[in-house]
């Protein structure tokens, strides 16, 4: 592994001070993605600032009736937390659909938000990649792009964001709490991750001297009608080809409110507010769901190997909406799709 220096942050202010003084340093918490990227020579930090001992692992109710997840709360801890199981099962289900038990025990909430794409060219330092080396070109657009994005792409990058947890957080309208030299800042989840545009090297809008301290969930958790449906090459421990997080609020025979977020299809968790708004007041039928899927996938474009994702996503969205409407969420252990 490449060599680096090591220091510990004594508190949040010290962490901000240390990172602001050295932009070639990186924070390390769970390390599940960063250590791998250092071994692959993709990330080359000169120093790691250990934030894992900071007191940011608490999960507590907010004054507004929501739930605050400390940035260092392990993915496992969040998924199995009684309040998450009771009020935000969509989040727990999404977390348990990702990675392995060992990785979920290590990975932090903040780190999950900051994980990098698994684009094979990003990892392969022998090939051009605008995300890894800005200006060098994108190898995926005309390369092997089966895993790549179909929405929100640019001529510079067609990578996807790999997180499952973030798809649920996007659907739930979470807020990311960050601290920098200027104090605390609250970022709506939809504004946290970026589309690639002409700066694909920037995954998020987190500032270079900022640290994530918490993720806050609003009161509405869609615990009655939700699902996280993940379609992948093998039944477990694989990144999504397409995944769909759905939360519905039903009123009688009609949909009162809908949230739909997609993964595996874009550089960030994908939402389409118009498609969600159009579901309000509609009956939960196959026709309604098909129209929603078409709205969500409006403008989708394949790059050859990943053309199949467009019809796959359409069917996955319809299935997920149906699962949520029927109150029969996808099991993350028994993967048969009813």
């Amino acid at each position, binding site marked *: 592994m490449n060599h680096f220096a090591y220091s510990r942050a004594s508190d949040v202010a010290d962490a901000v001070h240390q990172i602001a003084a050295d932009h070639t340093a990186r924070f390390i918490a769970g390390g599940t993605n960063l250590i791998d990227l*250092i071994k692959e020579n993709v990330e080359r930090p000169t120093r790691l600032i250990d934030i894992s001992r900071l007191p940011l692992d608490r999960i507590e109710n907010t004054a507004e009736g929501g739930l605050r997840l400390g940035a260092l709360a392990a993915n496992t801890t969040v998924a199995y937390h009684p309040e998450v199981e009771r009020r935000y099962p969509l989040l727990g289900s999404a977390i348990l659909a990702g990675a392995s038990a060992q990785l979920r025990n*290590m990975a932090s909430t903040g780190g999950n938000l900051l994980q990098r794409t698994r684009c094979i060219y990003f990892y392969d330092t022998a090939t051009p990649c605008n995300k890894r080396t800005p200006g060098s070109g994108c190898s995926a657009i005309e390369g092997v792009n089966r895993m790549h994005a179909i929405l929100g792409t640019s001529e510079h990058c067609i990578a996807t964001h790999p997180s499952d947890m973030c798809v649920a957080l996007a659907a739930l309208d979470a807020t990311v709490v960050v601290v920098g030299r200027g104090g605390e800042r609250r970022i709506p989840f939809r504004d946290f991750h970026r589309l690639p545009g002409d700066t694909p090297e920037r995954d998020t809008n987190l500032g270079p001297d900022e640290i994530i301290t918490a993720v806050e969930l609003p009161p509405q958790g869609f615990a009655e009608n939700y699902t996280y449906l993940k379609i992948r090459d093998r039944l477990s421990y694989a990144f999504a080809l397409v995944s769909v997080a759905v939360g519905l609020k039903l009123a009688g025979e009609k949909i009162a409110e809908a949230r739909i977020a997609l993964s595996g299809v874009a550089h960030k968790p994908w939402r389409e507010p118009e498609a969600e708004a159009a579901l309000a007041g509609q009956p939960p039928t196959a026709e309604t769901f098909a129209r929603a899927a078409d709205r969500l996938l409006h403008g989708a474009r394949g790059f050859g190997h990943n053309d199949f994702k467009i019809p796959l996503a359409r069917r996955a969205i319809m299935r997920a909406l149906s699962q949520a409407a029927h109150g029969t969420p996808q099991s993350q252990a028994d993967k048969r799709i009813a």
Partner: protein
Amino acid sequence: MASRAAATQKSEKFPAPAKTAITLVVNGVSRKLEVAPWTTLLDALREHLDLTGTKKGCDHGQCGACTVLLDGRRINSCLTLAVMKDGANVTTIEGLAEGSALHALQRAFIEHDAFQCGYCTPGQICSAAGLIAEGRARTADDIRELMSGNICRCGAYPNILAAIEQVLAQRGEPAR
């Protein structure tokens, strides 16, 4: 002399980061060691403490051969920096047996022939110990899902599943 001066200059410009003294409680025994920042827990166990039961497979967190219990929770030791775990409790495959009495999982793996080459087995057993401690597995599907971080190239999965089901049943948590 000139080359020595240059060498000295070079080493001053790029000083080797100091090793850090840490203490790990490994299998109940307090062990002091000095590690570089980039030494993984896996390398610390194998290279510094000669505990070679924990295996290096992919070294990227994908295969699970390096699984150990850290403060009771199963983790990938290949993606863990030893320096970050100063003071932690580590249980490896060498620490599961009690004296000459094998751990129930070790006995069950032998009974069910739950391995062929054996390379993944220490990770499988430590992972299974973590799974049992978590108390989340009720069905065979649960076990398969929650053991998916451990790859067996020989394909002993049916027997690994049977071994874990047996131990869960012994503990009064029958798999369905």
